[in-house]
């Protein structure tokens, strides 16, 4: 480890990989957010058929490994639909579907934490279902969900390393090729680990700050959801 500085030669490449990792994380989280909120609402307020569909979706993506999901979507969608897609699109879509399944659980818990008595109170004021959702349920659910949602951020961020199996040039994949090229895997993976660690630690601090800004006394989650 005498000249760890050799890493700097690859700084540009590593940065490229890191940016790809962050982009994929945010795409997955954002898409998963929409899917998660919609499926949670569907599971809480929807009809029986919708509930079955949603739960099958969630069970599939939570019960099987992300790697298998990535391989399956990457290889099969072009064959089944004729749509050509690259590793980036396939990866982003799979991450969204995967994260949506996990986020659904968090949102469902949070929506159910807005107790029935408040829904009745909203009704008694003459609010419509949509008004109740927008003004009463979601403002509370979105706050309640932040602490458990933080776990999903970390978990998905680290899971993006699975994208290596479809050849996407994210941080882990880039590190693997640098390690092979330089014959210095020990130092390279150590360095990569530190990048992930710093990124996750800083992200957690930021999320914590945000939570403390929007948090309301008495709206904390008392039990695990």
């Amino acid at each position, binding site marked *: 480890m005498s000249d760890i500085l050799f890493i700097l030669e690859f700084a540009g490449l590593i940065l490229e990989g890191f940016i790809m990792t962050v982009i994929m994380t945010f795409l997955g989280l954002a898409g998963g957010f929409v899917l998660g909120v919609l499926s949670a609402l569907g599971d809480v307020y929807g009809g029986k058929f919708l509930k079955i569909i949603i739960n099958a979706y969630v069970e599939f993506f939570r019960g099987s490994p992300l790697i298998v999901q990535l391989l399956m979507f990457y290889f099969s969608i072009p064959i089944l639909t004729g749509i050509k897609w690259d590793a980036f699109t396939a990866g982003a879509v799979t991450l969204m579907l995967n994260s949506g399944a996990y986020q659904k659980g968090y949102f469902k818990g949070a929506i159910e934490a*807005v107790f029935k*008595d*408040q829904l*009745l*109170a*909203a*009704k*008694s*004021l*003459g*609010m*419509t279902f949509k*008004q109740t959702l927008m*003004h*009463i349920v979601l*403002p*509370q659910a979105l*706050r309640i969900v932040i602490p458990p949602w933080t776990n999903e951020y970390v978990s998905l961020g680290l899971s993006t390393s699975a994208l290596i199996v479809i050849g996407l040039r994210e941080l882990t994949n880039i590190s693997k090729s640098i390690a092979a090229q330089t014959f210095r895997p020990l130092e390279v993976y150590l360095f990569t680990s530190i990048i992930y660690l710093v990124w996750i630690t800083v992200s957690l601090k930021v999320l914590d700050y945000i939570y403390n800004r929007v948090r*309301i*006394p*008495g*709206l904390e989650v008392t039990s695990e959801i």
Partner: protein
Amino acid sequence: MADVVLACEGLKKAYGDLMVLKGINFKIEKGQTKVIIGPSGSGKSTFLRVIGLLEPPTDGKVFFEGQDVYSSDMDLNMVRAKIGFVFQEPSLFRHLTALDNVKIGLKVVLGMSEEEATEKAMETLRLVHLEEWAHHYPAQLSGGQQQRVGIARALAMDPDILLFDEPTASLDIELTWEVIDVMKELAEREVTMLVVTHEIGFAKEVADEILFMDDGKFLEWGPPEKVLRNPSTPRAREFLSRLLGGV
């Protein structure tokens, strides 16, 4: 006939096979205060929720200001906005301050502007003596204060009638008074009120009529002195002697 605010005819409500309300006729006129008493499980809360349009009846009719609510094409939400409801649990919106709890119905349902709603809400909070607590969240208020915010939230909508479902049942005894006092003040201002409660003192003092409910029906009704002092049915006698026995 004087202005009947809320009325029902042959009102029935069943949950599955369980018949909770067994055909009720009832009416309340503008400015009146009526109190419903009765053992738990007799259907008081269900009656209040059905006549308050929070749950549909299984059978029978509900009239709001002379109009059959369920057979005309009235906008149910707009009628609900004219019927104030105070619940047993304070049921405040936990993400909103006391002031915002009172404002939200004004803004979202009645479409008031921010300034208008703030002014109206502050004025109403003053009526329940909570103007100094306007910017506190529900979790920072006592049970009695929360319940008074709940009253203000309903009152601010300028409802034609206020329904109370055992508003003091979940409160400690010393917090009960502050809520009862506010309700007495409302009665003096001739706000139309229909109250389910076990606070006999309140009923005696302000009620125009007391109704005794048992097993999904009103067994007897009349002015407080008659129903409280001289009940004609054995069930009412038994219930009242137990209720007043401890006093």
